[in-house]
């Protein structure tokens, strides 16, 4: 049995995508201050319940609430309170889901399952919609955890009477959930089964979206789903408003007709009174409809804003990807080019410890050497991407023979150009305006040379230089050590002396 479980483990590991990482709890703790990251229990469980069983907890909560009308509890672990007060206006009612002290829930996914089960059963949402709303509800309640200031601004007194600073919302740490979690589900009092029973605008409050944007994927897919959900809400309300508008227009037409009739004939005062009453009623309904239509317009504006935010975030990902691609292109050391890994392998060391190397392309999958350059004595361990080619300093035949600048084809690694002039094998190289600066060697004397892209030497310093010197280009000047240890200042074009900094 143990063997079998071990095999399952191995297979599961194999099934994971190559990029999968383990959750680093320490790292998560570091980011706690700036980001909603739920910390879930990672250890062994004595008893494992299925996702369906966990979701059923939510459904049972809904049943318990239905029985009582204002509250319910199940297994002495989870409670639900319906805090609806029709006498107070302008603020939200709420369903409050409480995780009680005896509850053992220790993963945010399970809190979401319970919430989704509740929303499905109590408010008639579809499975997918309930799952989405539950996710937003948990993030919303984590963002405003313990923020009584915020809650009191937005929720009715009855709702506030059920929460305090310690239990309002949900903590991001699973061990703080039992006995200290009261999640608010903002409600509008409408019929069951209507998409807008739950106030989605509140769940997608600016801070909630900001939190989601901190996620690696900026919460984009969830945000898109929420926009689509709101879109359906609006469509449903628009349909209602449209049929209501038609009904009221018909009523208005009938009323006007009646009024005309009354004008013509001698009307009984009771009839007139009834007509006036009817007109008042109609006007009230028309005002209500206008208010509804205004709400729809506001909701549409809200959706448009959220769409724009999502589009901008998606496009920023493209820009980031472009930047990364650009940086990658500029990388001069070991890099993957066209899915290939360039690798410099040490070939030999001379008595002084200097190395020569060979350059190969390795296919990372399935880790084989695809090709090795025929240029077999590359000095040192460095290669450079230069004008979409690869530049190295390589010896002619063996490590002791003169070295030259050599350009290699990026795919075949074959030599496609070589400087006529010898360079110091371990020369520092620098690049500016398409030119290559390197120390050139002539019978034991070292000068600074400037090569064009065809590796032709088109300038050489009069002054001798320290062959191991690094050099720096600044504006039109180049700084390099003289053999005496002074710093020579050379013209970057003709390499004539422009100054000297004495040691």
């Amino acid at each position, binding site marked *: 049995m143990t063997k079998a*479980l071990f095999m*399952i483990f191995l*297979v599961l590991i*194999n099934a994971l995508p190559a990029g999968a990482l383990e959750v680093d709890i320490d790292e998560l703790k570091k980011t706690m201050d700036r980001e909603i990251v739920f910390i879930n229990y990672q250890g062994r469980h004595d008893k494992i319940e299925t996702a369906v069983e966990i979701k059923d907890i939510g459904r049972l909560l809904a049943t318990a609430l239905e029985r009582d009308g204002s509250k319910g509890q199940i297994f002495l672990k989870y409670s639900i309170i319906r805090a609806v007060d029709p006498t107070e206006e302008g603020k939200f009612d709420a369903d409050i889901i409480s995780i009680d002290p005896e509850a053992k829930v220790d993963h945010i996914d399970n809190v979401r399952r319970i919430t989704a089960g509740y929303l499905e059963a109590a408010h008639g949402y579809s499975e997918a919609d309930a799952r989405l709303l539950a996710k937003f509800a948990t993030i919303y309640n984590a963002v405003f955890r313990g923020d009584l200031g915020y809650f009191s601004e937005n929720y009715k007194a009855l709702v506030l009477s059920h929460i305090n600073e310690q239990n309002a919302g949900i903590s991001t740490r699973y061990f703080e959930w039992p006995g200290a979690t009261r999640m608010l589900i903002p409600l509008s009092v409408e019929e069951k089964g209507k998409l807008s029973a739950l106030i989605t605008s509140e769940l997608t409050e600016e801070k909630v979206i900001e939190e989601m944007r901190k996620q690696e994927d900026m919460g984009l*897919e969830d945000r898109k789903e929420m*926009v689509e959900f709101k879109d359906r809400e609006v469509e449903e309300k628009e349909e209602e408003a449209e049929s209501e508008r038609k009904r009221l227009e018909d009523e208005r037409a009938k009323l006007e007709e009646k009024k005309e009739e009354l004008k013509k004939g001698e009307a009984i005062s009771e009839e007139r009174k009834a007509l006036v009453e009817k007109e008042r009623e109609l006007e009230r309904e028309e005002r209500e409809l206008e208010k509804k239509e205004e709400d729809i317009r506001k909701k549409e504006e809200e959706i448009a804003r959220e*769409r724009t935010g*999502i589009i901008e975030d*998606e496009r920023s990902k493209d820009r980031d990807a472009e930047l990364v691609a650009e940086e990658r292109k500029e990388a001069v050391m070991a890099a993957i080019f066209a899915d290939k890994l360039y690798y410099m392998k040490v070939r030999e060391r001379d008595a002084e410890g200097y190395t020569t190397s060979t350059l190969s392309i390795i296919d990372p*999958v399935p880790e084989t050497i695809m090709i090795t350059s025929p240029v077999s004595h590359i000095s040192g361990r460095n290669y450079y991407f230069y004008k979409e080619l690869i530049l190295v300093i390589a010896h002619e035949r063996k490590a002791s023979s003169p070295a030259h600048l050599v350009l290699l084809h990026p795919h075949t690694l074959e030599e496609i150009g070589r400087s006529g002039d010898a360079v110091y094998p371990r020369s520092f190289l620098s690049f500016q305006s398409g030119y290559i600066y390197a120390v050139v060697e002539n019978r034991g004397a070292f000068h600074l040379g400037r090569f064009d892209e065809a590796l032709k030497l088109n300038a050489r310093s009069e002054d001798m230089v320290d062959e191991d010197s690094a050099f720096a280009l600044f504006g039109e000047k180049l700084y390099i050590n003289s053999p005496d240890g002074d710093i020579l200042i050379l013209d970057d074009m003709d390499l004539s002396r422009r100054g000297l900094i004495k040691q």
Partner: protein
Amino acid sequence: MRSVVYRIIIVLFFLSLFTAKLNALKENLSDLSWRFVTGGKILYKPAVDHRGIIYFASDDRHLYAVLPEGREKWSFALRSKPSSSPVISYSGTIYIGCVSGKFYAVAPNGSLRWCFDSGSGACLNPALGRDGTIYLPTSGGTLYALDFAGNEKWRFKARAGISSSASIGPGGSIYFSSTDRRLYALNPSGEKKWEARMSGSVGTPAVGLDGNLYVNSSGIQAISPNGKHLWHYSIPARTADPVIQSDGIIIAGAQNARLYAISSRGKKIWDLYIGEAMQSPAAVAEDNSIFVGTENNHLYVVTPDGRVQWVFSAKRTVRIPTITEDGSLYFGSDDWILYALKLKAGGPDDGPWPIYLHDTQHTSRFNGLKDLCSPAAMILKELAYSNSIDLKFAALSDIEQYIEGRKFLAVHVQSLEEILAFLALEGVTYRVYEQGTVINNYPQVRLRSCEILGSLATEGAWNILLDVIHNDSDSMVKTTAVGALARIGADVNGRAVKTILFELEKSSAGQQQFIFAALTALERIAEKEGFRDPSLIPHLVRITQGNYSKRIREQALRVLHALAPGKELEK
């Protein structure tokens, strides 16, 4: 218990192999050229015109036009969710249907040409007759025939709601299906030819080289052009609409996660278990590679012999792909993104129905655009290229009536652009000399051509007008060209502003009419495009202070305000 555990191990093992295989395939992706993000799901197939401009609709209630390099050209507000793919007419007008029952005809510059309100439910994918007639099916069960100007010619009421796009066969017969499992055939004048009761729900028919219909209904069924049932290849799952390769092989994916290749005689050639349900029709490329999207967010590329070649991942369901002549592949996804991939597989296959809705312009007609090498185009060219100014004007008059919706010509917009380019530049860049004198200089023809190009409003017309402004020395022609350019409006890459600015700098104070027209054009462009090119400002300021008429100076000031309202101008 032990056997259960071993079963789980076996399942997981194969799952791991599949995942590993998928990951390896994903490493081998073809290049993603670009992505275009919208504000809603992209459920319908993108259409592509002869210049590579991509038109598609998003659930954010907009029709988009995107340039081949991935930049937005314009967007058109639909005020309702789309319910069809865009269809590009021969004159370049883009048709799109909506859930609200509205059917829009949008000019190539994004302005509304006309709108037809079906009042019979959502407008589904229409088919385009050879004479420009639009056969528009609606979910309410009525198929409308509209002429190219949007006027109703006739209507046909099916027994139930229509459930498919319309397709047109070789003889012009119109085919579509309804929710009560019927397949209908109408003749081009709207009379019913036949109706066939099918064994399952019916999709959109594809028409084979033999004129037979291949349609999804409990698998794939073949029906002859006179309604006779030929064969039935049963698939035990909901099947996507089929496409047909050049060798007659029918390709369709299904909800059971299998992709099928079926011969034109109804025999299975191969089937491939992909492991992901397919609802959308596939597309076949020139090298017979098959591209198909799945509900598990992937686009699969399958070799002609039925092996997975590579996989591309989106974030949500991948919808119907379209392949263009230059080897680009475009598809939308439920993740709100239009993806553009560069293929190594070439353009679309040369088959009778290689992609859904037949071709990239979505004519849904057998032979589609191939039918358009018509006598009308040849006659028009003969008139335009003649030496007679009267015949040239006759050609222009025909074209104008066509664009204005008064007279249909079976001429593709590409031919119109070709003819208008010739007439607008004849005597300027196309010169005929006789004894050292240009003998084909017709400024009035050029002027008239420019006016018509402004109405044509295509990307091609735009480019021709820029050429005229740049090359023509006749002030009146230039003035007309600039005015026409302003009517088209958008200047996505800033080329028009640069050209106009250059010509303004060259112009003398005497060319007041041209300067005024140029400034008006700049104002129109600035209204559409906003602040783009700050190098314009000093030049405009010079005009406001220069030796020009009051009208011109005021116009320059208006352009300045349009370019940089408020604080930007102060800067």
